[in-house]
Structure formats: structure tokens, C-alpha cells
């Protein structure tokens, strides 16, 4: 894991040049959330707040164990609880830790207009560089998982950093370390995928035929993955997207529209410029002037008594 100390960027928001990518032999990291081991104790939430010095406001009881009520600029991870009655009529309490998925192809980064405000390190972590954030909220629209939140205090976007500060010095994220039941694991992405495989075998042996790994390919896979008992229906878990992808609308906006628009605008300007060069200005001639004066004079004289 010593390679994790290298935090070279592989992607950088609003940047048209290739980031330095020679040191590419960095192990990809991943956090694996095994929902079948999670007891919803919120240790991850507490550890996240403690390590990252976050203290959202004290809320109210709102008819669920979910507290605070939503992710927020200072709520980077949140346990979500869903009471689900299965086909046999038995209750399953599906508890999921929500937070940034650290997509391989991050929609937030794609949408971000501020150069370098969102970066992806070579190890896969997607991080918000608050100093460069302009608070436009485009990341919110770019994210397929509804994760980033904009602070009303400083108008900057915030989300889980996967404890990039800890990972940078060779430690696991705070939530991972705290998790009492090992429902959150951390390691190289391949190790996590292998471990998930073992877990899925175990779950299948316990009657969860549809157990599987949630590593959605449409966003290039994620660096936060879930083991789900019902991988065929991720939305059972408090609305985890069944088929997450960067919205085609965002793709269009941040993809084809950008160059087309610039070209269009540039072309219009160029055409105008060359038109002027070729055709010359549309000028008033002396004849025009004379004709104009004449018209005025005639009307003047008509009106004169």
C-alpha cells in the first residue's frame, strides 16, 4: 500500500490538458461496504465527523433512524435504513451507508467548471479542492448518486474525501477503521473485488440467491463498492440507483456542446471578420447623403406655407 502515498492526479476538473500521468503504476484503492454485515450503528458517521472536524446542526427526530436527515456540507456519510418485507413475508432491515462512490468516471468532475476544483488521484480517490471551488453546484447535477452538497456558509461543495489525508500517509479512511463489524473494508480495488466474491458465495449459501457486487460499469466502476444481498434490485436500499450513469443531459452539456458552441461562436466571428475584409463596410455614399437631404428638403417645402 505504500504506493498510496503518491497522490498524482489522473483527472482534473475543467482542464483541457492531460494531467501528469507518467507515474501511473499506482495501486487503485477501494472501499467495500458489505451491507450484509452492517448493523447500522453509525460508527462510520461518528468517525467521519470526528476525523474531518464536521459538526452539523442537531436536528429533530423525523420518523426514522436517519440522522441527520440528509447528506450535507458537513454530513459526508449517512446511514440509510429501509424496512423491506420480502416475498416470504419476513422483514429485512436493509441498511446502507450512503456517501461518495468515488466513480472511476466521475460525473461531478466532468460537470465542474472550475479548473482543479475536483481531482481524481491516481489511486482512484475523487477529491474536492475546496479552495478552487466556485460554488456553482454543477457537481450536484453531474453526480449520478446525488452526493455533493453546497454549503450555505462558504458556498463550496463538499463530500467524502475517502480520507485522502489518511490514505496519503498509508492509513485507511476513518470510517473503515471504526466500523465495528468489518462491514466497511479498505484495500486495493482488486483485493476488495476478490473479498466481495467470497462474501457473495457465503450470502448465496445463506439463501440470498441474488447476492452480488455493486460496482456499476456505466461510471467506469467505483472506488466505493457494495456487497448487496439483493444485487438485482439496488433501489431497495434506500434508492441506490439501479443503473447509475452520468446523465445523458450532462454528457451532452459537458461533451459535445462545449466544442460545438465554441466553434460555432468562433466561426460566426470569423465569418463576420472575413466578410468585412472581402466585402468592405456598408458605407453611406455622398449620393445617399444628397438623396436623403433632398427627401428632407422636399418634405420641408411641402409643409411650408
Amino acid at each position: 500500500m505504500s504506493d498510496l502515498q503518491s497522490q498524482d492526479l489522473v483527472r482534473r476538473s475543467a482542464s483541457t490538458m492531460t494531467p501528469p500521468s507518467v507515474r501511473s503504476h499506482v495501486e487503485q484503492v477501494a472501499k467495500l461496504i458489505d451491507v450484509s454485515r452492517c448493523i447500522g450503528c453509525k460508527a462510520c458517521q461518528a468517525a467521519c465527523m470526528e476525523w474531518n472536524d464536521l459538526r452539523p446542526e442537531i436536528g429533530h427526530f423525523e420518523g426514522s433512524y436517519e440522522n441527520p436527515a440528509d447528506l450535507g456540507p458537513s454530513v459526508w456519510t449517512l446511514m440509510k435504513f429501509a424496512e423491506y418485507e420480502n416475498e416470504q413475508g419476513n422483514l429485512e432491515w436493509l441498511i446502507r451507508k450512503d456517501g461518495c462512490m468515488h466513480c472511476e468516471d466521475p460525473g461531478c468532475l466532468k460537470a465542474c467548471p472550475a479548473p482543479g476544483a475536483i481531482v481524481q488521484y491516481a489511486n482512484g480517490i475523487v477529491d474536492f479542492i475546496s479552495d478552487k471551488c466556485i460554488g456553482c453546484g454543477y457537481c450536484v447535477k453531474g453526480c449520478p448518486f446525488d452526493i455533493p452538497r453546497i454549503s450555505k456558509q462558504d458556498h463550496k461543495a463538499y463530500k467524502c474525501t475517502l480520507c485522502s489525508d489518511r490514505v496519503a500517509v498509508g492509513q485507511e479512511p476513518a470510517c473503515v477503521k471504526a466500523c465495528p463489524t468489518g462491514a466497511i473494508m479498505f484495500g486495493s480495488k482488486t483485493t476488495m473485488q476478490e473479498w466481495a466474491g467470497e462474501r457473495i458465495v457465503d450470502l448465496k449459501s445463506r439463501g440470498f440467491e441474488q447476492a452480488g457486487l455493486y460496482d456499476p460499469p456505466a461510471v467506469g466502476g467505483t472506488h466505493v463498492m457494495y456487497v448487496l444481498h439483493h444485487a438485482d434490485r439496488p433501489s431497495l436500499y434506500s434508492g441506490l440507483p439501479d443503473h447509475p450513469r452520468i446523465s445523458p443531459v450532462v454528457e451532452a452539456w459537458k461533451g459535445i456542446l462545449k466544442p460545438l458552441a465554441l466553434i460555432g461562436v468562433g466561426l460566426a466571428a470569423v465569418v463576420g471578420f472575413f466578410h468585412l475584409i472581402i466585402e468592405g463596410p456598408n458605407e453611406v455614399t455622398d449620393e445617399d447623403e444628397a438623396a436623403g437631404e433632398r427627401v428632407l428638403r422636399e418634405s420641408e417645402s411641402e409643409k411650408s406655407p
Partner: protein
Amino acid sequence: MPLTRREFIKFTGLALAASSLGMLGFGESGEAQAAAVRPFKLTRATETRNTCTYCSVACGILIYSMGDRAKNARSNIIHIEGDPDHPVNRGTLCPKGSALLDVVHAPTRLRVPRYRPPGGTEFKDVSWDYALDRIARLMKDDRDKNFIAKNAAGTTVNRWTTVGMLAASASSSETSYLTWKAVRSLGMVVFDNQARV
């Protein structure tokens, strides 16, 4: 102008290439890398091994404090996390343990002895000597008045039932031993702890 799909891709590709080239002068990637990651906050913090104060899983914890215990530095606890060497918790902590920092620094931590007189509506700060002198006086007066040396049958029973004590549940065994000694030497029997709740 109708474009075929092929031409379209070529067209946008060229545009992208052009815009990339155009951007060369404005690159700031190096700077971003340097500024990106928050500095690790525990680099030279002092680490103290302790045990979580809550339940009796007794998770090992590492307390990180500012200051290296030099004469002029007053330690201040800045972070608490699990002790990875501990055979039970292996570095993990529950939501209470993960938030230990906030109980250490709770705004409702008591800092000064306080006293409320009979019928009073407020606490007032008092000195330790005032508080302990007064407590000792009250205890002695009551013990001298209500101590039962012998019962009706004439058996020596040496019992004091009018002042009682509830002992802690998170204080150390050493504290509890000293408490036991002091309390029993007075003959106090209304003496219990939190084992039941």
C-alpha cells in the same frame, strides 16, 4: 450542412484537440497536486493508550493530544481512535467510542465545585475546601446521630443506614477499592453501584 456520424466525430475530435492545445498556457495541475490533500493532522501528536469509558467490551483507544509534554506545553486532546493492537476491537470503535472526543470536551463538563443551599434556585461556585469540609461535617453529624452499634438482640452490627452512596461504573478499580475502604470503614450499608442498570 448535413454531417455523417463519421464526419461529426472527426469534427468534434479536431475541436477538442484544438481546445487542448489552446489551453497549454493556462495549466495549473502542479499547483493543484501540491495543495490537494489536507495535511495529516496527527504527525507529531502525542499518543496515549487508554480504554474506552463506555461499555465493557473495553476497546483499546489511542488518545492524540497536542503538545509533546514539554514543561511549557499543556496537553489538549485533539483526536481519539481505536487501538489496532487491541485483541478485541482491533482498531474499531462504535459510534460512542468514535465520538469520545466530544465527551471529553463536552460544554457541560464540570470545571468547578458548585453548591446549592436549601431552597436555592441557582448553583454557586465554591472552593474544594468549602465543599469537602461541609460534606464531612454533615456526614459526621449524621453518623454520630444515627449509627447503630448494636441491634435489639445486642449483637454488634456497626451499621449506618441514613447516609448512602451510589458508586460509579466507569471509574477505575483502584478508585472503587479506595471508595469501598472509606465507605465501609464508616459502616455504611446503603451502598450500591450501577450493575443493574
